[in-house]
């Protein structure tokens, strides 16, 4: 099998280049259809995300697969660009390096945020689009299925996916889940209507947060945010009552002084009657007096606390990197060994078949010429021919099996020497 990949990613290419090479779902389908028209003996998969565009082409022999130059040309042509405009921004890998690259991508080891889970579904989607074009892709099927298996192995055997690295993500996906079992029956109070509030609300809504109340000194901004996330709006004057009713508070105002002091919160705490409350104070300077966290059922987390957790998670991901890389290397080696076994198996079978055909023909001719042989003598001659063929084939077959890396060349040589064909 021959596999080529060319593409661009956040590692090598600027956003402007990535934008030029980005494909929508329909464009991917058109791209693949045109590719099959131009290279009918090849298989192709196009992976296009906001951080990368990768074009994989595979064929059973080198003649069927376009060269990397041809692939760059085809890619540029499809996007209406000149080859020179993009060539310097693209990477190219072949065979083993291409396989290892795909495994790294699927396992999210090549992502901008290492360990993010979205890339695996994007790889699956890219493969599915290639299947949907209706062309048979047996080689890429094997490669992509293995890539998904590798990604799952990395996810299962390392902690690389389990840790979150952004503040709102850690706050909602990790911290909130340690306190609340579900968010759909919780009152969520958003104080402030800035970017951080919006980003945090995205995670809250993704976790089924429904009862959202937004309050802000500037009413118009709160209106926009509440409308966007289907929340209610409340006046700043009702803040105390909202503090009493809330289960989760996200505070992101730009106030220069704490908006809730311990003294103000005393009354709130009494009226809450020990009901658990998580306060995510994501404002700088802080919106809530730090002493509020001394109340038994109040869990107060500041931006600093969450950033520490994010940093710890980043380090944790980094510590998992070598382990994940080892898995990818191991799986790449296994993949090629498996591929070699398949290839050498078919070559060996062809060689044995050819040798046996020659042996049978010669044996038949000899037996016709030798009259009056007893069955024992006939059997002896047959066994002798059989042994001869086996002894002749033994050294070359042993060489093929001995060193699987070297034997790729041997297989080609054997095919040519014995004219075995494909």
């Amino acid at each position, binding site marked *: 099998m021959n596999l080529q990949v060319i593409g661009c990613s956040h590692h090598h290419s600027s956003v402007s280049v990535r934008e030029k090479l980005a494909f929508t779902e329909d464009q991917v389908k058109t791209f693949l259809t045109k590719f099959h028209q131009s290279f009918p003996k090849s298989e192709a998969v196009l992976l296009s995300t906001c951080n990368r565009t990768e074009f994989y082409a595979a064929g059973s022999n080198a003649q069927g697969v376009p060269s990397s130059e041809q692939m760059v040309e085809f890619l540029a042509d499809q996007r209406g660009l000149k080859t020179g405009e993009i060539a310097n921004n693209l990477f190219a890998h072949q065979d083993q390096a291409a396989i290892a690259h795909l495994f790294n991508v699927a396992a999210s080891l090549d992502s901008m945020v290492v360990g993010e889970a979205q890339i695996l579904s994007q790889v699956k989607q890219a493969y599915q689009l290639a299947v949907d074009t209706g062309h048979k892709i047996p080689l890429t099927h094997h490669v992509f299925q293995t890539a998904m298996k590798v990604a799952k*192995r990395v996810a*299962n*055997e*390392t*902690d690389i996916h389990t840790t979150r690295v952004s503040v709102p993500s850690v706050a909602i996906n*990790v*911290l909130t*889940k*340690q*306190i*609340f*079992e*579900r968010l759909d029956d919780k009152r969520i109070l958003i104080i402030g209507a800035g970017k951080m509030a919006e980003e945090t609300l995205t995670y809250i809504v993704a976790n089924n947060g429904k009862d959202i109340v937004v309050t802000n000194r500037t009413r118009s901004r709160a209106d926009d945010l509440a409308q966007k996330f289907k929340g209610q709006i409340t006046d700043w004057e009702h803040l105390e009552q909202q503090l009493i009713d809330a289960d989760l508070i996200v505070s992101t105002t730009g106030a220069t002084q704490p908006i809730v002091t311990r003294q103000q919160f005393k009354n709130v705490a009494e009226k809450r*009657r*020990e*009901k*658990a409350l998580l306060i995510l104070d994501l404002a700088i300077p802080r919106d809530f007096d730090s002493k509020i*966290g001394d109340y*038994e*059922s109040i*869990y107060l*987390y500041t931006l600093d*606390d969450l950033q*520490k*957790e994010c940093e*710890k998670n980043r380090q944790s991901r980094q510590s998992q990197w070598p382990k994940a890389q080892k898995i990818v290397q191991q799986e790449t080696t296994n993949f090629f060994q498996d591929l070699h076994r398949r290839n050498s198996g078919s070559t060996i079978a062809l060689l044995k078949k050819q040798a046996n055909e020659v042996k049978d023909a010669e044996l038949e001719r000899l037996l016709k010429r030798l009259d009056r042989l007893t069955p024992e003598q006939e059997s002896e001659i047959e066994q002798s021919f059989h042994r001869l063929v086996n002894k002749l084939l033994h050294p070359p077959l042993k060489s093929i099996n001995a060193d699987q890396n070297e034997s790729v060349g041997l297989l080609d040589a054997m095919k040519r020497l014995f004219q075995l064909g494909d």
Partner: protein
Amino acid sequence: MELLQKISVTCFAASYLVVLGIELSRVFFQIGQRRYIRFGFAAAGLFAHTAFLGYHTQLSFDSQGIWLGSWFGWCLSGAWVLAAVYLWLSIRTPHSMIGMFLLPVTLLLIWFGQRFSDTLPFSPGRAKTVWNMIHGSALLLGTVVVALGFVFGIMYLIQSRRLKQKRSGSFPLPSLEWLNLWAERSLVGSTVLFCGGFASGIALKMVQQSNHSTPAPIPWSDPVIWTSAVLFLWLLTASIFGTFYKPARRGRKVAYVVTISFLFLLLELVIVWQVGHATDQQSPRTAAANCQIVQRRSNLQLRVQKRFSINALAGCQRSAHCEPGGRS
């Protein structure tokens, strides 16, 4: 049948120990497929546990006509319920390390059962009655629910402490809300079950008394009975208080209540072990206390009988039941 005979307590206790070891290893390192290995061992342990209980219950039923047979069977049945709950929770919340807390309690109950293995079986006369079945089952389930409440309570306290100290911790636990809810439910559940156990115990005593012409009072001085009463009253008070005063049902308060309940339970189990409650093997102290009560009653009745010129011999015969070591 031969295979069932070969299953011993060690088989399933060892399986649970392996599961506990796997759970603990999660704190230190990551292994792929660990969840399935853990589940496999837990399921195998539970299967062996079920087979063992089934076989021995059948033996006990065949020989004595009673289920569970002895405190040994009673403890192992409790441990079986806990192991089944663990298996269910490990499917429902596979990422939480509940086993780290639940399995030691399960193993403790198995160990306790082993300590009881050389005691006599339940008194056959008592064990066959319906009231006794209800009494034993309710107390068994009550014990299990108290143990579960303790596990949820301890996990709540650890999780709450971690969150207060802003530490992520090396092992995942269920959410505070979930732990609080189940600790509260276990408190109410154990109150109901102990109420059932206690009421059926009184009914049992009354039925026994109705079979004797000399009625004996409930032996409140029996340490098993008064500790059960204290545990039940404690649970009842906590449940009633929690119903009318919401803050008592929230946060660490519930966790403390269920933890104290478990300590009461442990104390009671130790006392049961010491005095051999519900068996023919009662401690001399308990037997003497019971006999003193019945003796006093008999003497009183004797005097009454004399007064009304009734044959005094009947009273003397009854007093013969009350020698130390005799069944009350």
